[in-house]
Every structure is written in C-alpha cells, then in structure tokens.
C-alpha cells in the first residue's frame, strides 16, 4: 500500500542533504570538539560552522545560538534559565502553549511563581489586550509561541515582544513549528529568547537550539564541563549540530518555493473536507496559519478512531498534539478555542510537508468521507441515520 505522510508537525524525515552532511561525523570525523588534537579541532570547526548557519538563517549573531537536545530543552532552558536569578515573581504564557512551555510554567508555579495563562480567540490568536493587562510589576518573562502545533495559528510575536519590553519583562517565543516553515528573523521580532527543534524542519531528532539575545542573563539547567558558553554542558552532538545547520540552510532556501505551494494544498484540503463532510468545524485562523496545517473537528466521531482508520488506508495524520502521556483528555488547545469537549474529541490535524503532492491531497479527499461516514454510522451520538 502506498502511504501518505501528513504528520509533519509531529516530525519530519531527515532531508537527504542533511543526512549526507551528518554521516562523516559518526565514524570518521568523530572527535570531541573540546579536544585540542586534529579530530577535536575538526569537530569544533564543524560545530562552529553549523552555528553560523543557524545564526544566519535567524538573523542572529553566532554567539547568540546555544545548541540543545531539542525543542523541549530549549523551552525549559528559556523559562528556568531566564528566571533562575530572580526571586519568584510573575510569569505570562499563552493558554495554547506546547506542553514543553506549559509544564515548565506549571513547575515554576509549584516553585512559587505566579503564572497567568492568556486566552486566545476562536481562531486561536492570543488576546493582545488580555496579554497587555496581565503584566504586573513583578512580571519577569512572557512566553507566547510563534505558531501553534495543533491548530496552526500564528501569533503577533513582534507586537507581543514589544509590549513585554515596555513592561520590563523578557520575551520568549517557542518557534519550534515556525522555523523552517515561515520566515523567522530575531531582529524583526525583537524577542530575547527563541526555541527551535531540528526534527521539525527535516533535521535530526535530539537536537535543537535556543537563540539568546546578546546581554540576556541566563542560567544553565544542565551543569558540567561548561560547553556552549557555559549555558549548556555536555559533549556536543556533532552530527546532530551539523545536521541542524544544513537543515536550517536548506529550509530557508526552499521556503519561498515551498511555502506558497503548501498553502495552496492546505487550502484545497481544508476546503475539500468542508465541502464533502457535513458538520465539520475548521480550527485555527483562516489565513494567519502555518503553511502546511489543516485542523478541524468532526462531530460525532472520536479523533483516534479516525486516525487509525486513515492509517489503515495509508494516511498518517494526528488527532492533535503528540503527547507521550497518552492522555485521553481533549487537546487543551482545541478547548481554548472554545470548542465543547465532545467536539474537541473529534479533532484532527493534518500537517503537510515538502514532499506531499496534490495527488496525495486528492487521494485523501477521496478516502476520508467514507471513513467518517462509517464511524458516524457506528456512533451512538449520530442522530441522522
């Protein structure tokens, strides 16, 4: 069976060029960058070249890039590291953050920090007034994601950063879903901290970066040999770092071509689903959204059962965020948009990527309606027989 991968927001395949660039660093150029001998120096040079690539794509300085083990670590480093020096005060996050920010904020809350969760509107865009009013004298940091991983909505990050700075707070954005899919320039955004992750942009898993604006005081969360300008100890994951560098460069180069193409496929897919299936609610903002994200809720059926049936037909999608906890709760993001819990259970996310084609979209639009139909026939909630 031909399979169609529509789950690029969960993870992406490593690009051939990325893997080719990484390969020498496993068994040949395997030096530890901290060592002074030839293999060590060559590894160091590779790490620094990758840092320059990441920095260039973000419009950052090389010294502003800290390599981490992924988006989750970057988010945790931003929040815990950015707040470590201060006495517990106040922290602002949006209501639709990824668990990596959400749970870090909750952990800070248990340590004595007051946390405000800023609501979003029905399209999944942060309520800027509520955000602005949430600042207090002791607000140290605000964190609002660049683009949401479930419903794809893109936030007004530059405006939010400006407000945080007016209030004297640091601003962090989790740009894990945005980097590689949308132009992200730290200068234009004016953020202090920005998280990204390799495996969301055709790079490897287990590598990420945190942009730390020059002058931002940050404490490490991993202590040790003092790597990454003392901000992140641990022997550098050289192949991963090299891969991230190439993935960033490749994504940036392809963006002008890929983005409009995915937006067209996205809109076709969303329109096709809405046309063919009654009682579907589309989720997220109609235009202010990730190029590859289509999200909707199907009444009377449950997300996992749609996902598994689609999988049996070769289509790989997600019922929401990939959450290892295996929670059965409906997505907090979809609930934050105002959906009733029973409808939130019927939500589904399709995330398109570079290699997807119009044929695949068409095939999906063929396959999906009968699946929904069959599940609705099986549903005790579905009244119209």
């Amino acid at each position, binding site marked *: 069976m031909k399979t169609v991968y529509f789950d690029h927001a969960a993870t992406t395949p490593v690009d051939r060029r990325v893997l080719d660039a990484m390969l020498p660093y496993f068994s040949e150029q395997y030096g530890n960058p901290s060592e002074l001998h030839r293999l060590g120096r060559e590894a160091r040079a590779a790490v620094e070249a990758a840092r320059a690539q990441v920095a260039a794509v973000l419009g950052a300085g090389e010294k502003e890039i800290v390599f981490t083990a992924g988006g989750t670590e970057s988010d945790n480093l931003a929040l815990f590291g950015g707040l470590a020096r201060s006495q517990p005060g106040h922290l602002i996050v949006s209501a639709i953050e990824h668990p990596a920010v959400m749970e870090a904020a909750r952990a800070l809350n248990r340590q004595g920090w007051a946390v405000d969760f800023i609501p979003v509107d029905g399209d999944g865009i942060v309520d800027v007034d509520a955000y602005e009013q949430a600042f207090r004298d002791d607000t140290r940091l605000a964190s609002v994601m660049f683009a949401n991983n479930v419903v794809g909505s893109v936030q007004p990050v530059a405006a939010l950063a400006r407000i945080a700075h007016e209030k004297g707070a640091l601003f962090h954005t989790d740009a894990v879903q945005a980097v590689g899919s949308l132009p992200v320039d730290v200068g234009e955004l004016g953020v202090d901290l920005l998280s990204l992750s390799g495996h969301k942009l055709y790079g490897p898993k287990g590598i990420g970066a945190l942009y730390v604006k020059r002058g931002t005081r940050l404490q490490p969360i991993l202590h040790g040999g003092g790597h990454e300008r003392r901000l992140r100890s641990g022997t550098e994951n050289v192949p991963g770092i090299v891969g991230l560098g190439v993935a960033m460069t490749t994504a940036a180069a392809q963006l002008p071509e890929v983005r409009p193409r995915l937006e067209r496929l996205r809109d076709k897919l969303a329109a096709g689903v809405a046309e063919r299936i009654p009682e579907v609610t589309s989720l997220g903002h109609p235009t202010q959204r990730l190029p590859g994200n289509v999200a909707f809720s199907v009444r009377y059926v449950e997300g996992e059962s749609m996902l*598994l049936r689609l999988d049996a037909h070769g289509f790989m999608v997600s019922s929401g965020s990939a959450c290892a906890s295996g929670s059965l709760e409906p997505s907090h993001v979809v609930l934050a948009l105002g959906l*009733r819990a*029973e409808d939130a*259970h019927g939500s589904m996310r399709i995330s398109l990527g570079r290699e997807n084609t119009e044929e695949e979209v068409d095939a999906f639009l063929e396959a999906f309606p009968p699946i929904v139909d069959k599940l609705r*026939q*099986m549903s005790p909630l579905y009244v119209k027989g």
Partner: protein
Amino acid sequence: MYTDLVMDHFTNPRNVGEIEDADGVGQIGNPVCGDVMRISIAVDDKDRIADVKFKTFGCGAAVATSSMVTEMVMGKSLEEAADISNKAVAEALGGLPPNKMHCSNLAADALHLAIQDYLVKNGREADVEQFLKALPKEREHSSH
C-alpha cells in the same frame, strides 16, 4: 500499542448497529470524556442472548472492547453474560494499553446495563440483584 486482535476488532467491528425493538438497551460513558457505548440485546425465551449489537463513540480501544463483548456474549445465557467483566474483555483482546484501561474499557458495563434494562422491563427486579452483583452505578466515570 494495540494488539493485533484489538486492531482487528477495531477495523472489522463485529455486530455494529442497533437492534430494532431490542429487549434491553444499555448506554454508558459521556461524550465529554470521549467515550459513549450503547449495547442492545435480544433475549430468547431460554434467557439466552439471541442477538447483540453495539454503537460506540470513542477510540480504538472503545470500539474494540465493544465489538469483543458482543462476540463473547452472543448466544450466552444472561447469567453467563453478567459474569463477564471489563477486565475479561481486555484480556480476551490480549490486553490494552494502561491508559486505555480505565475510560475506554466500559463495554461490559454497557452490556450489564442492557441486561438490567431487560430484567426490569420484564418485572424481574429480583434477578438484577442476583445476576449483576457489580453493576455499574452510573459510575464516577460518567461525570469526570
């Protein structure tokens, strides 16, 4: 995460539907929690389950346990059917992921409610007590 048997019951669910003029109907779960199961039974004059059908809103485990329970009780006596527990259904499926054991594994409860419905409708309240010792009492589940 699901066993092959779970996937088989999910992909080819047995006995989907609703028995017209059923002798007993049981429904459990709550759409807010993401799982609703309805089981209808036809009972013959020897107190045997002559037919059983289900409708389920829920995840793979919810569908598979519903399907499995209908297969397990088809043709069984009410007393035998009443003895089947959610745990037994999960075991018959070769196990369920831990996070699916609590909320999505309610098919036996729905069946028991259908049996109760039948007994009550037929004035046999006394048998309810006897058959269904561990009857779900609109469990905590439905409201959480």
